[in-house]
């Protein structure tokens, strides 16, 4: 235990001594993690969105203008019902809409309390049996002056899922590249320490130290670099995300009818992911840096 403590102290000294390279390591790992964090943020939010709007999947929602008369509403209700592919039609007041939204948002429901005036419109819900019918309903909606806008969740969800998938491929390629860069940078950083302690290493080998024993302090240094980088990344991600949620969060949320994942939930997940990656990259980097020194 005290040995680990000693190793950590040594590693910190060493990181301070090799400032330039250590900074390069932090920078490379942090950049990679922030990109990963951005993607993670997008995909958890898309997942949450898909989850929340699942019940409305086959529904085209027609948002009504505030000044629509009862007659106009009735007219739209009856006409929409007659369109082919439409299975049912119903009217939802803005109060009902808010209540339902609150239920669906679950834990995040309290966020809606801060809205003050109910920003949701009255609406007509048109259940359809497919994309074609949805198109028909949308086209009909554009002819009606009482309808402000339409929303078809299936389309939105599909589009978002498609975007996330493309993003996933792009991010995977970038990530792979950045992970390799990070490992190389870390291994070069640690190589400086390895060279500085080459004599000690050769003595250890003569005395009969196992390779893992010799690696110990260098592993600690690599892992420490990884851990520090991941904590920096978590802090930056949290600050950015919290700010985004605070500034455009509510607007975005009512627009999409879905809450954003809370900053604390996101941060706790990112912490785990970043720490695991940081430890992995640091360990790989230091093992690679010592390969030449340790092969028999």
């Amino acid at each position: 235990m005290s040995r680990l403590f000693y190793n950590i102290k040594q590693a910190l000294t060493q990181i301070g001594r090799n400032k330039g390279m250590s900074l390069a390591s932090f920078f490379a790992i942090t950049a990679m993690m922030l990109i990963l964090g951005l993607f993670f943020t997008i995909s958890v939010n898309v997942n949450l969105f898909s989850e929340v709007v699942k019940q409305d999947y086959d529904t085209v929602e027609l948002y009504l203008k505030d000044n629509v008369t009862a007659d106009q509403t009735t007219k739209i209700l009856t006409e929409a019902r007659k369109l082919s592919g439409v299975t049912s039609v119903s009217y939802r007041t803005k109060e009902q809409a808010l209540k339902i939204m609150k239920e669906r948002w679950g834990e995040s429901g309290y966020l809606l309390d801060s809205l003050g005036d109910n920003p949701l419109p009255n609406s007509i819900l048109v259940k359809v049996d497919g994309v074609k019918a949805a198109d028909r309903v949308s086209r009909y909606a554009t002819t009606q002056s009482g309808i402000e806008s339409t929303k078809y969740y299936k389309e939105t969800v599909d589009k978002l899922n498609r975007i996330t998938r493309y993003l996933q491929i792009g991010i995977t390629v970038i990530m792979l590249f950045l992970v390799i860069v990070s490992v190389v940078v870390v291994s070069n950083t640690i190589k400086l320490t390895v060279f500085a302690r080459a004599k000690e290493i050769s003595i250890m080998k003569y005395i009969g130290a196992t390779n893992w024993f010799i690696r110990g302090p260098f592993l600690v240094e690599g892992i420490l670099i990884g851990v520090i980088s991941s904590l920096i990344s978590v802090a930056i991600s949290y600050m950015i995300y919290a700010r985004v949620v605070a500034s455009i969060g509510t607007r975005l949320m009512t627009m999409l009818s879905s809450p954003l994942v809370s900053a604390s939930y996101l941060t706790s997940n990112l912490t785990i992911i970043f720490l695991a990656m940081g430890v992995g990259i640091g360990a790989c980097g230091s093992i690679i840096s010592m390969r030449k020194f340790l092969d028999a």
Partner: protein
Amino acid sequence: MITLENVTKIYEGNNVGLENASINIDAGDFVFLVGPSGAGKSTFIKLILKEIEPDSGSIWVGDYDVTNLSNREVPQLRRKIGMVFQDFRLLPKKTVFENVAFAMEILHKSRRSIRRRVPQILRLVGIEDKRDRYPMELSAGEQQRVAIARAIINNPKVLIADEPTGNLDPVTAEDIMQLLDEINMTGTTILMVTHARDIVDKMNKRVVAIENGHIVRDEFGQYGYSDSDFMDWGIFDNE
């Protein structure tokens, strides 16, 4: 304890390290390994430590079949062999105590046993009063004693010394030889590479001479080369 059978090691560029060498060193032996520069003495030692692999032949150290040892088992082999070098190879930033304790830490020995054993060994090699000094603050002879303490602290079966008196004045060298002799008397096999004729002659031990990678002589007693041989080798200018 150490057995080589028809061992050959040719380096790149057809440099002969050792050629068809066979020898048997029994447990408890004290053996001088002598020969001109480039004869193959260091090669002999490196083969025993598995720092390098022979091209052919087999090597045994105690129960260890060195040639067929996996890389993972090499540390086990080296723990049976204590090493002492001409240049001491102490860690400059560690005290005498820490340098010696280091060899025990590597084997994950408990703090308690380290605190008990290190002073014993320091007393044995005669530097118990220097335990908190750094290597740079010691004389060459004292540094070599620290190195010997480190080499024997884990009770190796074999102690290999590569020119341990090479950097020492004659009087100090003699003290070190006496220490090695004492260690040998506790049953530790000693293999010592040296160019110091006077030491070999005085000790009257088994002398193995290597030349050009071949074991050319193996008998008890004297260093066995004439002064003109030294001239031919041209390496003893400062001895």
